[in-house]
């Protein structure tokens, strides 16, 4: 029942937000609803990790459409977590823009619908229905990307919609071919992920391979795999920062989840090359993103490219196979999600402090706004993979697993790219936070005089969101709680047949 409730809450919140009350009403409702969603989905995850079934109280008709296993529960709880912190961050961030009440209400309506469409992805068990909610995530977030209504934001939204839907068109064909493959195998069961795994050995390999490639490329567009990533840095940099946190932190991951669902199916078929595809596409993504990170000019784009990099790392880890790498991939999903959302909150704080997105025009941030500066350094270090933060631990697990699998070339390349990306990110962050303006030293001292008056105070809710988001980034770097460990193990088990 709580699974259904998780899906209903954002919809109820959408309806409540529509009511024309004061400005703070919409924000408050959204925060409360996402908090409740977080608690409920944490309970679902808890039950799943303890081995209980959470769907047993559903009637038979529902069971066909809804199923929650370790992997789904993991994604579900991550979505709810980012939705909560982003909702808290939105309160202060959106208040800063001095928007009209109607426009603000529109933001929260779209926000809740977007969260709903994402929550539905891991919960649904029917691939074509999953395809539809994937499509809905694009459509619900399109107006959030274009929210600031500037020329650039509209361009980003347009590219985002057209490319994502183009990919979705291919993926739809892939899902239909997959259905045909299941019919051809003689299976008469309902079209769900689990029945697909059961039917896989009898499927005609050519249909299965075609479907896999179509879905990998089609949904890979929305995950941001190179070379289909071109829209991602645009959309993920132009949207308001809390939305960026959702888009980059969890939307990409939840689409990647759909691709991951196909790996156990592919393992059932004789000589499928799903792992090879994953490693190749993954490494291309990591490599390209690492080099692009060196030359970005916009700090929000920098974090967007880092998302491309991390999606590549996760896909490579899945491709490396074996239970250890699978566990590493799941750990990487968690750490990327919490860290990247923190990074975009930090970027949002910087944006309200300095009001420019250009790296070159931000210098000496630590003096101008200590909180934003410190958050940016912390976020940069965390996402680049410095110890003792979460990303370091998960990347370490993946590399270790790669070595024990004797995949020396892939693991070596992965390690090199991660190091390059580390330097790329830290170079820019360091300049922004501690750098002095290059040209004139005299102006530097006059800057110091004028500083106290434009010293900037971050809204309370933004600070709260930053602190909440920072806790898991730090804690998961050296300690993984037992329930989470169980959940990760189960999720990794769902990756293999």
């Amino acid at each position, binding site marked *: 029942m709580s699974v259904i409730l998780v899906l209903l809450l954002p919809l109820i919140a959408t309806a409540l937000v529509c009511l024309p009350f004061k400005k703070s009403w919409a924000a408050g409702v959204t925060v409360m609803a996402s908090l409740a969603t977080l608690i409920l989905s944490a309970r679902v995850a808890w039950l799943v990790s303890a081995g209980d079934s959470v769907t047993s109280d559903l009637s038979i008709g529902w069971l066909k459409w809804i199923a929650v296993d370790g992997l789904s529960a993991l994604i579900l709880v991550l979505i709810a977590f980012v939705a909560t912190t982003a909702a808290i961050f939105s309160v202060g961030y959106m208040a800063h823009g001095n928007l009209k009440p109607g426009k603000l209400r529109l933001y929260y309506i779209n926000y809740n619908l977007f969260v709903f469409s994402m929550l539905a992805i891991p919960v649904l068990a029917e691939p074509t229905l999953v395809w539809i909610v994937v499509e809905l995530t694009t459509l619900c977030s399109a107006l959030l990307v274009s929210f600031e209504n500037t020329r650039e934001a509209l361009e980003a939204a347009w590219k985002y919609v057209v490319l994502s839907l183009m990919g979705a068109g291919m993926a739809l064909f892939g899902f239909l071919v997959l259905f*045909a493959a299941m019919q051809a195998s003689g299976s008469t069961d309902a079209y769900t992920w689990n029945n697909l795994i059961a039917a896989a050995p009898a499927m*005609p390999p050519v249909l299965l391979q075609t479907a896999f490639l179509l879905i990998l490329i089609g949904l890979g567009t929305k995950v941001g795999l190179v070379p289909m990533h071109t829209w991602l840095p645009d959309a993920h940099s132009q949207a308001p920062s809390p939305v960026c946190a959702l888009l980059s932190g969890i939307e990409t991951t939840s689409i990647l989840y759909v691709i991951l669902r196909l790996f156990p199916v592919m393992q059932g078929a004789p000589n499928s090359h799903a792992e090879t595809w994953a490693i190749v596409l993954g490494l291309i993504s990591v490599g390209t993103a690492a080099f692009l990170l060196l030359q970005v000019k916009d700090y929000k784009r920098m974090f967007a490219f880092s998302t491309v990099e991390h999606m590549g790392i996760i896909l490579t880890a899945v491709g490396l196979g074996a239970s250890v790498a699978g566990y590493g991939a799941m750990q990487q999903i968690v750490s990327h999600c919490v860290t990247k959302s923190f990074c975009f909150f930090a970027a949002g704080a910087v944006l309200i402090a300095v009001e420019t997105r250009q790296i070159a025009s931000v210098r000496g941030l630590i003096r101008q706004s200590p909180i934003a500066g410190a958050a940016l350094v912390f976020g940069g270090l965390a996402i680049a993979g410095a110890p003792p933060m979460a990303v370091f631990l998960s990347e370490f697990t993946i590399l270790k697993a790669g070595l024990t699998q004797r995949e020396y070339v892939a693991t070596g390349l992965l390690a090199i790219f991660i190091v390059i990306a580390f330097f790329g990110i830290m170079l820019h962050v360091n300049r922004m936070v501690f750098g002095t303006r290059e040209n004139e030293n005299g102006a530097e001292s006059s800057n110091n005089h004028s500083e106290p008056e434009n010293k900037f105070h971050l809204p309370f809710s933004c600070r709260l969101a930053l602190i909440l988001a920072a806790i898991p980034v730090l804690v998961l770097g050296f300690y993984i709680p037992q329930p989470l460990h169980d959940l990760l193990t189960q999720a990794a088990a769902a990756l293999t047949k």
Partner: protein
Amino acid sequence: MSDTTNQLLVNLNALVAGLFLLTGFGIVAMRQARGCLNLFIVQSLLLAASAVLLGLRYTSDHLYGVALVNIISKPIIVPWLLRKTSPSEIYTRREVDQGLNIPTALLIALALAILAYFLARPLLNAVAPEFRGPNVPIGIAGLLLGAFTLTVRREAVPLLIGLLAMENGAFLCGIAIARNLPLLVELAIATDGLIIVFIMGVLTRAVQKQIGTTAVGELASLKEATVEPAEKEVAK
């Protein structure tokens, strides 16, 4: 049903599928937004016709449902939604600067259609004989032509039509090879198509307000090399 009727239905379906392919070519080549929309409506009706014919041939009620959903959503609601959401002048716009001139675009489209036949062959060999037919290759061709339309067009409406045409292509395949999909799924996909039209219409209106044109192909400022203004700022 007798063999002659069956043969007739199969032949009719082949004719309908052929016409479907022609409309795909038309969408690539048509310069006027209004014409594009009309061709798309014809294409959706052909898709519905193919569903009815296959439904008669294999006595599948489910395919009638698909046809009904298609007839209601695409030729009626899509144009209505477009008129509601986007500025009315987009219909009259002619596209002067296509990415490619029309003969070249049509030649490439032809190559794509031939490619679709080669792509479809291994798939057709893998499914049962009753699933074979012209729908699969032509559906793939429709998908590819739709994607091609997306790459060469610059105007908002033809781009939207390209997206919907891709979906039509996938569906033309779908009614042949994935005949037993639950109707709920079909309904949801149709609704989804309508949301696409709505969102893209709203975006088009916003674009027109902001930059005064619906030629979205001209939006190309977001690149890695947009550093000049900021550098000037620093120099000041």
